[in-house]
């Protein structure tokens, strides 16, 4: 609209604003996208399935919305967006010390653990979150509660039913023992907890349960048997045997990995002292062994004299057997071959390169012809076997 100037009237010029589209005026484009809406619904559903408090749901939803604001997430594939749902719920649970494993979340979402781990690390970095580690004690309580051994049923005979509190208490002690003896650090927690639960269950009524294997136990309890659980079980039994060697009334019994289960209660009662003693003796044994080795390396004749003198001290057959020291599993394995230090390199990067050095990376004309013939023959063979 403009008003033309006329007889002394001021000239008014109004600049028209550019046309505003309907979508911009109503904020239609600001609406949440369909995939984001679906994701937010999935977050809420997952929180309800896991029976999490409502505050967790709000936090997880907030994280999902924050993550969705990043262009990398908005443009990601649907698979990643579905996994993002689980990541937000997991982070929320971790921040509230609610024990939830990645395996559980992946199982509920039918997600691949590799995709989940990549998305999880990305989200933690993107949102700058500080995610506390999973508390082992809480995980033990939650995981043990899922074992179906606390009530008799057609699949679980009465002799296999156990009191939940007793089993939980003993499992916790065994897991603490595993933690102190280097069986937990650097390893997936669930196999250790499974092995500890099995031993706790066996030790509470060993007369009926010693014949039951770990695999059968997991089947009875209706839980999956993690692959490394058997190795963790053997390691835990070795630790218990080392501890038993320090108890006077068990030394005479000559226990093995089967019979030591009956005495787990005693061992756990004195575990702090026994473990400390076993480690101290183990370290002393190792240092003595190293000194002897160094002595032998320095002078074989000197070493021989030492060995001879030590053998004269005690007659053969009466030398006390030295128990294997209680050490972290990585130290019990045979030491890796020490790589010889690489020779000092004199390469500067700017040396001259002679033609003869390059010839080895180029085919001769004859080799090129042979290669082409071989390729043609292969193509022909393929076309014969796969006719159009």
């Amino acid at each position, binding site marked *: 609209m403009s008003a033309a100037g006329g007889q002394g009237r001021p000239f008014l010029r109004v600049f028209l604003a550019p046309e505003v589209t309907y979508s911009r005026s109503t904020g239609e484009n600001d609406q949440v996208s369909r995939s984001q809406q679906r994701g937010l619904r999935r977050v809420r559903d997952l929180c309800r399935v896991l029976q999490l408090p409502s505050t967790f749901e709000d936090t997880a939803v907030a994280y999902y919305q924050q993550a969705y604001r990043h262009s990398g997430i908005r443009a990601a594939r649907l698979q990643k967006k579905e996994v993002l749902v689980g990541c937000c719920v997991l982070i929320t649970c971790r921040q509230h010390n609610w024990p939830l*494993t*990645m*395996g559980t979340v992946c199982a509920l979402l039918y997600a691949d*653990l590799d995709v989940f*781990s990549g998305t*999880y*690390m990305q989200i*933690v970095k993107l949102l700058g979150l*500080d*995610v506390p*580690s*999973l508390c*082992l004690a809480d995980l033990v309580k939650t995981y043990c509660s899922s074992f179906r051994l606390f009530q008799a049923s057609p699949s679980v005979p009465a002799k296999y039913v156990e009191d939940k509190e007793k089993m939980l208490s003993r499992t916790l002690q065994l897991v603490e023992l595993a933690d102190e003896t*280097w069986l*937990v*650090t*650097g*390893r*997936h*927690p669930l196999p250790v907890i499974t092995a500890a639960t099995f031993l706790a269950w066996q030790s509470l009524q060993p007369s009926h349960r010693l014949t039951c294997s770990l695999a059968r136990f997991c089947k009875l309890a209706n839980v999956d048997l993690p692959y490394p659980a058997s190795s963790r079980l053997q390691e835990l039994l070795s630790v218990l045997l080392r501890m038993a060697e320090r108890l006077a009334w068990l030394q005479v019994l000559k226990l093995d990995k089967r019979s030591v289960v009956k005495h787990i209660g005693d061992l756990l009662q004195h575990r702090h002292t026994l473990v400390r003693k076993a480690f101290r003796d183990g370290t002393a044994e190792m240092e003595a062994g190293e000194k002897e080795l160094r002595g032998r390396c320095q002078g074989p004749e000197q070493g021989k004299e030492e060995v001879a003198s030590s053998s004269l001290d005690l007659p053969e057959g009466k030398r006390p057997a030295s128990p294997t020291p209680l050490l*972290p599993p*990585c*130290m019990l394995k045979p030491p890796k071959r020490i*790589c010889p*230090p*690489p020779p000092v*390199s004199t*390469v*500067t*990067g*700017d*040396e001259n*390169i002679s*033609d003869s*050095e*390059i010839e*080895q*990376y*180029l*085919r001769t004309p004859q*080799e*090129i012809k042979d*290669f*082409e013939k071989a390729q043609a023959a292969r193509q022909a063979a393929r076309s014969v076997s796969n006719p159009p």
Partner: protein
Amino acid sequence: MDADSDVALDILITNVVCVFRTRCHLNLRKIALEGANVIYKRDVGKVLMKLRKPRITATIWSSGKIICTGATSEEEAKFGARRLARSLQKLGFQVIFTDFKVVNVLAVCNMPFEIRLPEFTKNNRPHASYEPELHPAVCYRIKSLRATLQIFSTGSITVTVLKRKYTLPTPLDSEQGPT
């Protein structure tokens, strides 16, 4: 190990990644035909060429961008890259060796003691993160040095230092090569 003990730690560089440009288009088919020790990955549009001395593997794109991996020092990486450029020159390409840069250095080191990872992580937040369900090592980031350390309970440590920011190519970049 005491704080005052004089134990020297050996840090061994195991891998150096570098990139350079040839400033000319490269015919990958010709390289695959006339070069020795090559693998032609037609589906992703690149050629892998391995050198014996130094022991490096080069990934060659038709745009003339090349990544070399496997060297055990920066000087060796440069020497290997130049050797590769020379090989391509011998094949008849008008190669000019330019834009050489070392992008990544990987080293390993062994501590003479074991490490309790949960306690270590607790005492070193927020630099350290430990997810035993995903990986058996603690990931420790030093932002100022652009370094990432993987710390294992055995005492073994892997150090990765990013020297230059570099984006790995995607299949869509096979024509253009890495950025």
